[in-house]
């Protein structure tokens, strides 16, 4: 145990030192450095940074755990969180890069010739980003408290301090280079245990292939068949066919996550950091390469963790583990309260079944699967230490990207763009840093006192991005005629419908007891769960916008010219615009 703690300290604080050194070497000197890293990041570097930015504590810690317990249903996260990059690469990123501004609200303001639209976009952006940061801060706190036995609060303060130093100092430039380092840390931390476990179970070191291989225990049975057999024997649904809430729900959920991903401002703004339109297209590809490295391993991690868990509890059918002989990791996680056992039939053995009456594993928190996985598989201590550093890297890198999105939208869009246009570059830079500091404190406060609605708001963040930002951007690029009225009415009705649906099932502002239709499935529209509703909001947004467009004037001539211009990588219209 002592050795594990020592290794973990070395891994975590070693990685922090690395981030500080990088941040110092790449500190920001101008607003362009601060917002878009001077526009000089290569597609490969940008792809890695997007990977780290995008893959949060949720991807690193929670996703494989979700898949482990949802089985086939977990595919919505795998497809939903990767398919959005196809939309980004083709429908948004190249044109927004060509337009050549610093922030998403700035693009919306130019395209819809309106400061009101800019302010609406800033509000959507801040709500979406802040709710995300709370999750990251919690992730840092949990990782510290579990692995270093530091108090949750202190872990959170350390995380706040580290992210403050390099985000405020380095701006986008520092954050980008730090994220590249963080990507390397997190991908090693994720894949190394997976390789070990895949080797143990199937003899194949590549997890993606191991998942489709036969078991190495001599039975000659395929891993997935074995898993199906083990879980169905205990009354759970079959792993490879368990579809979460039915086909319609899975369809809507996947599509909502895809367009939500494409509409998240902290991802889109990364495409402003590359030097050309060509580079914007290819960085989306590189980003997906680096994301896919983790996302194609995750299903293997999930399935293998589930199998290992089942095998630990019931090594041979009918011969259950004695509670008194439970392994060390079992005891460790019991201490955190995330794993709970209750001897219902008094036989001293552990029964884990789908039947709530006889099931004795009364709590198995999904989030512990990735973190406990190396210990369940008896991997060496340095691997466990690496997982701790990887989880923290995933949380910090995402938090930094989100902080930058918030600070640039306040200092650049609200102050420079709307309220104090005369602000000097030096003061704008200072304002950006002050806003970032305040955001960290707000996020830290909310991490210490998580509001009851924290979990629900993540769904709202995706819903907002899917139903408002993505349609507004896409129509702005693909329809020359789309005007301000259509855009604003579209955004408002899209958000309105989505929020109404989420609130009516989960409570107004997520306050319990104010939900007027209940969280009950029979009341769901075509069986679509509230988390999957963003796509319906987007459809409403598109429809309303085009109906309004039929009854109002097209966008002015110079706006149509501007759209023509950002559709081509080079163009003389830029010059015409400047004259």
């Amino acid at each position, binding site marked *: 145990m002592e050795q594990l703690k020592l290794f973990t300290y070395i891994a975590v604080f070693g990685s922090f030192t690395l981030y500080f050194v990088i941040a110092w070497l790449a500190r920001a000197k101008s607003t362009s450095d601060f917002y878009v890293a001077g526009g000089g990041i290569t597609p490969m570097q940008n792809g890695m940074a997007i990977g780290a930015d995008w893959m949060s504590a949720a991807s690193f810690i929670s996703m494989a755990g979700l898949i482990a317990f949802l089985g086939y249903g977990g595919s919505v996260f*795998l497809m939903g969180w990767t398919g959005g990059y196809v939309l980004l*690469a083709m429908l948004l990123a190249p044109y927004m890069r060509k337009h050549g501004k610093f922030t998403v609200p700035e693009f919306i303001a130019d395209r819809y010739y309106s400061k009101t639209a800019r302010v609406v976009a800033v509000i959507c952006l801040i709500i979406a980003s802040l709710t995300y940061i709370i999750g990251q801060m919690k992730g840092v706190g949990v990782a510290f408290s579990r692995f270093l036995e530091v108090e949750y609060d202190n872990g959170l303060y350390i995380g706040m301090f580290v992210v403050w130093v390099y985000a405020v100092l380095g701006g986008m430039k520092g954050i980008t280079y730090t994220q590249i380092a963080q990507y390397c840390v997190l991908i090693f931390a994720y894949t190394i245990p997976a390789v070990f476990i895949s080797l143990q179970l199937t003899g194949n070191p590549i997890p993606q292939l191991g998942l*489709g291989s036969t078991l190495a225990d001599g039975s000659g049975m395929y891993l997935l068949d074995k898993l199906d057999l083990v879980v169905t024997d205990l009354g759970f649904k079959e792993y490879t*066919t368990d579809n979460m809430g039915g086909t319609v729900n899975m*369809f809507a959920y996947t599509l909502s996550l895809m367009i939500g991903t494409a509409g998240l401002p902290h991802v889109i703004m990364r495409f402003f950091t590359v030097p050309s339109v060509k580079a914007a297209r290819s960085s989306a590809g590189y980003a997906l390469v680096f994301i896919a490295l983790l996302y194609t391993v995750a299903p293997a991690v999930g399935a293998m963790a589930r199998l290992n868990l089942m095998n630990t509890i019931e090594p041979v059918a009918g011969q259950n583990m004695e509670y008194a002989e439970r392994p060390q990791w079992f005891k460790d996680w019991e201490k955190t309260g995330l794993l709970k056992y209750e001897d219902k039939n008094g036989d001293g053995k552990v029964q884990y079944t789908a039947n709530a009456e006889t099931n004795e594993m009364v709590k198995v928190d999904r989030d512990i699967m990735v973190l406990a996985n190396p210990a369940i598989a008896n991997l060496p201590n340095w691997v466990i230490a690496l997982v701790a550093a990887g989880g923290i890297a995933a949380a910090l890198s995402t938090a930094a990207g989100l902080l930058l999105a918030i600070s640039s939208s306040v200092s650049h869009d609200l102050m420079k763009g709307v309220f104090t246009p005369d602000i000097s570059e030096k003061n704008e830079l200072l304002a950006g840093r002050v806003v970032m500091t305040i955001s960290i404190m707000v996020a830290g406060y909310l991490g210490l006192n998580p509001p009851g609605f924290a979990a629900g708001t993540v769904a709202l963040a995706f819903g907002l991005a899917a139903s408002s930002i993505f349609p507004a951007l896409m129509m702005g690029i693909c329809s020359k005629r789309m005007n301000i009225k259509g855009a604003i009415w579209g955004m408002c009705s899209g958000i309105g419908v989505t929020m109404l649906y989420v609130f009516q099932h989960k409570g107004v502002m997520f306050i319990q007891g104010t939900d007027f239709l209940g969280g009950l499935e029979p009341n769901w529209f075509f069986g679509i769960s509230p988390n999957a509703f963003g796509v319906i909001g987007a459809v409403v947004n598109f429809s309303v916008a085009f109906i309004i467009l039929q009854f109002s004037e097209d966008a002015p001539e110079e706006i149509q010219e501007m759209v023509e211009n950002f559709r*081509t*990588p080079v163009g003389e219209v830029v010059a015409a615009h400047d004259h």
Partner: protein
Amino acid sequence: MENKTSYWQENLRLIFICLIIWFIVSFGFGILLVEQLNEFRLGGYKLGFWFAQQGSIYTFLGLIFWYTKKMNELDIKYNVEEE
């Protein structure tokens, strides 16, 4: 002007092709037709399950790189490539 319009038209055509494949592989093979495809096998994977958890992601990757390559060619054809 003429040139720009047809550049955009060709771009839209490429996007359309890509998004059809994007849809068929993820929503088609991974969700709507999953039960039928699960009758077939790819090693230990049921085929529909494989598309949902592995195949769709590889296809997305292929699509973006193919689109990027095609667009670079288009940029040269219409003489709009960057320095």
